């Protein structure tokens, strides 16, 4: 095993980890704010990426505007789902499993709609920073992957600042910790729940747009991302969106190092064994306790 191989594995692990983290953060933001396990988080990524692709190639928008459009599409779909389905079901005191079934159903319907309207073909987006690569001791990383890592870290820090420094963020956190208490201080709890879905949609879409230049997007990418994002979120502590960032990076690195350390045939066995050990030692997730205090 050479140093350059280890470095290449680290590059791949961090890049994948950030993608898992973005999907996982959205998932846990929604769970934190509404107690809904969102099985369609990966679909937000597909919606964001597909909208960007369509705005760029069909509508001829400039790339930056198309990216913004894709992110807004994710946020709007998030808001729509809360207003049209979750709010109504919450009024009827639906159970957690009903919400899970709702989001599984939505995931399948959205995937089918994308197949219907956009078709089965995969699409790529132009890489940020061009086709260039950075070569460190024979290990290669795309400029785009560096952008992805930078934006991912930026989004994580921004999310932390949002929850701790802004009135809306603090209100969302209050509503999630004690809904009745928050309502008595004048916080509109229902609206805060809509905001958590907007946030979840936005983070998911951002992850999807950023990953598309590397892996491409098609109608069936969503489920794959949801599963990895869910693992990241649980690993980090489901109630703490920042935990998902740590969980995502851990998952990405463990997967990638398992390939060079053991064998690609046993990648998932090794990766998930490590995750099981972490969950036994830290049943609340890596940052789960911090999440209880408010992240």
């Amino acid at each position, binding site marked *: 095993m*050479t140093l*350059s*191989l280890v470095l*290449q*594995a680290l*590059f*791949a*692990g961090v*890049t*994948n980890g950030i993608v898992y983290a973005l999907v996982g953060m959205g998932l846990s933001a929604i769970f934190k704010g509404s107690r809904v396990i969102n099985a369609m988080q990966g679909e937000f990524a597909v919606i964001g990426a597909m909208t960007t692709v369509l705005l760029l190639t069909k509508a001829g928008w400039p790339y930056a505007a198309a990216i913004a459009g894709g992110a807004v599409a994710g946020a709007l779909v998030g808001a729509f789902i809360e207003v049209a389905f979750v709010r109504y079901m919450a009024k009827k005191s639906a159970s957690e499993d009903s919400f899970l079934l709702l989001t599984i159903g939505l995931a399948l319907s959205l995937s089918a709609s994308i*197949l*219907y*309207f*956009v*078709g*089965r*073909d*995969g*699409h*790529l987006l132009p890489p940020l920073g061009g*086709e260039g*690569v950075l*070569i460190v001791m024979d*290990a*290669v990383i*795309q400029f785009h992957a560096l952008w992805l890592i930078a934006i991912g870290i930026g989004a994580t820090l921004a999310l932390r600042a949002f929850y701790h420094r802004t009135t809306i963020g603090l209100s969302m956190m209050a509503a999630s910790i004690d809904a009745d208490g928050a309502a008595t201080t004048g916080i509109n709890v229902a609206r805060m729940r809509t905001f958590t879905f907007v946030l979840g949609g936005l983070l998911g879409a951002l992850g999807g747009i950023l*990953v598309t230049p*590397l*892996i*491409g997007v*098609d109608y*069936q*990418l969503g489920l*794959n*991302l949801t599963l990895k994002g869910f693992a990241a979120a649980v690993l980090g502590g489901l109630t703490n969106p920042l935990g998902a960032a740590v969980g995502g990076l851990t998952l990405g690195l463990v997967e*990638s190092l398992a*390939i*060079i350390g053991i064998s*690609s*045939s046993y*990648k*998932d066995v090794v990766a998930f064994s490590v995750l099981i050990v972490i969950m036994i030692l830290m049943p609340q997730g890596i940052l789960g306790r911090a999440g209880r205090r408010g992240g």
Partner: protein
Amino acid sequence: MKFNEWEERKKMSVSSFIAKLAGATALVGLSAFGVQAQTSGEPVKIGAIVSATGAGAGLGVPERNGLLLAEKDINAKGGIKGRPIKIIVEDDASNPDTALSKANDLIFGQKVQALLGPSLTASTVAVGGVTHANKIPQIAFTGIGPAVERERKCLAHVLPPQRLNATALLEYAKNIKAAKIGVLHDAGYGNVVMAELKPLADKYGVKLVAVEKFEIGATDTTTQAAKVKAAQPDAVFIIATSATPFRNVKQIQIAQPVIAAIGSSSYEYVNAMGPAADNIVIPEFVVGEDPLPHQKAFVELYRQTYNSTPKNYEAAAWDAAHIIAAALNKAGADATGEKLCEAMKAPYTGVLANYDFSADDMTGIPISSFVFSKLVGGKYTRTPFRVAQ
């Protein structure tokens, strides 16, 4: 047009609808054919099962196109001794259980004379149980799979056995004098080809210096590709049904020649490769951009009808329909399954390959039927390299 395609696909699950659809397209399409022959009387019914939806749709959709085109062609040329042929196409949703129930319906409900398909090996094995027991001739759009298929002597295959695919890869490696090979393969199709490749490699004096696996549907295989790169091979084999490993190999700047198995030859994957779809060599059969002389008529007709370029799976289905039509013409439209089976067991020159269904593997494709194409800027070009028998 995408929208219409999907509409069509949706209708496929309703068998009566597809029968009408096939009938309608046959009528509309007649004008595309020069010389018309009259067909009359009770149609000769042939059942077909493809994976038009689900994971195998990348195969099933082209196959359905090939079948419907063949149906038009056969009827335009006089059908089966003057009677029209009717191919009833069903979708198994890439699921062997569904394939089995569709096969039962086609055989016992619709009383078809023979069965074409399915698209996937697992479904082929499942359906083979019914056709074998009831002596119904079957022509599958798969390469011969598990050992049980060798006992099914009336189940022909129009795609090469995986051993032949592995041989074709090694022949090209030998041609470019690559002695050290790195392999990237997926855990499904790739595993099966790999099992055949390993023992053959020794025979070719080829050393497999790195063999790296990834799961089906993996979104990133960079680390596996890096391990292959670190082993410093002379060439890299990619055996998969996805575009991901091709992109990763280019991303980490593997400069060695890449040779890919036929599984990733469809345009769906090539388009998803983006700029990575360059300089990849694929041992396959039909290069629509530059067809062999005996493939030209089919490619032209396909282009006129569908406004796109056909590849291997379209041609395989076209061949399967023509093979059963030829057997019916030889044995008679009302021949029993056993008679049809006997009529089928002969050499046949198809668009995809030269078959010999009397061969032990019920396929009989010689290695000389392979052409070796190279992707240049996302388009296929045919290389002059061929393997002599």
